[in-house]
């Protein structure tokens, strides 16, 4: 195989990886601030993808136009989930939190199975097969648009946390929970907001991912694991780390699909997760604990 095959696969991997990175960013934000490990992350992603498919089918629009409405809807769901269900678990043992979200994941997966059936659903856009040509390089239009949208959403989130007063208050809660309570921050509302921001990332990423592949109810656990792999490789709680690791995982899965067989590509991610957990648990970009 000549080099341009590899170059095209790497570019595809980078673009897909940015969308993965946005999804993982949601997980990272939720963990970094709320200290809750969202074991239902992939299942929420699957729900967002179904909503995108339904929206496109109903109104016949491009899924990318649904990105913001979906993000808003998932924000509301995440906000409600955190303030109603997860918040009372903040003082409970870790495993009780995990199991609560595992239960939420089971309900979402099987709810989707009952509502939509086991068959794969997808969206067709008229530019699905188009690509930009740069000499020997071919860049898929859908991938490029999805990746640019992912970068824009990530930048907006980054700006929100860095620049707005609410974002600053949220970071204060993450840095010092007790201190935040002492200075009178409404921690419960801020945690719910953060959880909502995390699920909003998932909503936006879901609208992009339906362009790259079909959705089935059983996709959830695989996406949850993918998000964990990315977040742990990048360092739990590190926002930039999630995007960088998303690209890294996207490229390594794409190359594994080319060099080995496509069905073995997840093995590379899980292998990477095992190695990072064993030798650098704080992640590639994370600070050591």
């Amino acid at each position: 195989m000549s080099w341009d095959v590899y170059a095209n696969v790497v570019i595809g991997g980078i673009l897909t990886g940015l969308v993965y990175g946005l999804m993982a960013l949601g997980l990272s934000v939720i963990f970094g601030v709320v200290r809750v490990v969202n074991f239902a992350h992939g299942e929420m992603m699957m729900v967002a993808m179904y909503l995108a498919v339904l929206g496109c089918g109903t109104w016949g629009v491009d899924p990318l136009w649904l990105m913001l409405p979906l993000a808003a809807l998932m924000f509301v769901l995440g906000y409600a989930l955190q303030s109603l269900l997860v918040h009372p678990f903040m003082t409970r043992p870790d495993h009780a939190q995990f199991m609560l979200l595992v239960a939420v994941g089971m309900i979402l997966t099987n709810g989707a199975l009952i509502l939509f059936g086991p068959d794969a659903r997808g969206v067709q856009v008229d530019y699905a097969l188009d690509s930009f040509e740069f000499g020997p390089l071919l860049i898929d239009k859908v991938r490029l648009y999805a990746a640019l949208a992912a970068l824009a959403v990530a930048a907006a989130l980054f700006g929100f946390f860095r620049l707005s007063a609410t974002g600053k208050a949220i970071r204060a809660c993450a840095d010092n929970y007790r201190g935040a309570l002492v200075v009178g921050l409404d921690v419960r509302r801020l945690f719910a907001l953060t959880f909502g921001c995390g699920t909003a990332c998932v909503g936006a990423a879901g609208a992009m991912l339906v362009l790259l592949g079909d959705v089935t109810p059983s996709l959830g656990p695989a996406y949850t694991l993918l998000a964990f792999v990315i977040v742990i490789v990048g360092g739990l709680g590190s926002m930039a780390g999630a995007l960088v690791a998303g690209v890294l995982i996207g490229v390594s899965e794409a190359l594994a699909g080319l060099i080995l067989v496509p069905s073995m590509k997840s093995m590379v991610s899980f292998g990477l997760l095992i190695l990072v957990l064993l030798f650098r648990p704080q992640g590639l970009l994370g600070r050591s604990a």
Partner: protein
Amino acid sequence: MNSLVSALPGRRRAGLILALGLLLAAPWVAGPYLLSVLVLALYYAYVGQAWNVMMGFAGQLSLGHALYVGLGAYVSATLYLHAGLGPWAGVPIAAAVSAAAGAVIGFLAFRFGIGGVYFALLTIAFAEFTRIGFEHVDWLGGAGGLFLPVVERGHLDIVDLRGGPRLFYYVLLALTVAALWLCHRLRTSRIGYYWLAIREDPEAAQALGIDLFRYRVLAAAISAAMASVAGSVAAFYYNSLTPADSFGSAKSIEIILGPLVGGLGTLIGPILGAFVLTGLGEALRALLDVTGHQVPGATQLFYGLVLLLVIKYLPGGIWPGLARHLGLGNRVG
């Protein structure tokens, strides 16, 4: 067994003997459908008990226990198919393989001080890694799976563990009782008290001179070996195994539902939880069938709801409260 029964106060002893009597008689009363449900309940009771050793006793959350069950199934089935080695020889070998896998994962994780969510994810990662790996080994049947020769109805061969549901019912009942006895012995032994100390406060346990690393690895190995036997028996019962069903994350979750709902860290909890969940799940399925609805996913949705409600409102599971209510003592599960 005697020590377990005689150590109990009167009401508990009577309750245990009554339950055992009912379970022994059940296959002669139950029809084929009910018998298959009971086999399933016993399977989850046993495998839940195995997981409970690691999480309930030693406090190490494994979300990838399907790995050990799947290894047990694949090793004993492969030995039977390719080496002609019957289950009585194959099951111990399979248990040793799973115990070694549990010990290696425990060794790696606990040596590097990995705990909490990181340990849980590591166990999922190993199980998923193995699942995809097995899907690409043609010698093991690949993604399509491995099949054992099916025997004709009525055939009973205890040496090769070939027979009908009734045989497997009694095998699983014996395993469940043996696991209950083993867990009782473990829990009241020095090791059990060390585990309890490690679960409740690792730092204090270490300060008292308990070797955290050694006893955590030991819990992982014992739990993995026990889980392995369930996999072997299930392989010979169903005669087919695929990597997705054997090692998948859904399987790992199914394993832990019983102990979580019944009562984490108790002896009766995993058994009670498995019977309650399997019973209610099958009742729901039967109810939907009768009303003419085929709803795939309905029982799993129901399990998710039960898990959510139990975690929220009964954090200790069903058994501790029930035991107190029945006057069966609340000191030990």
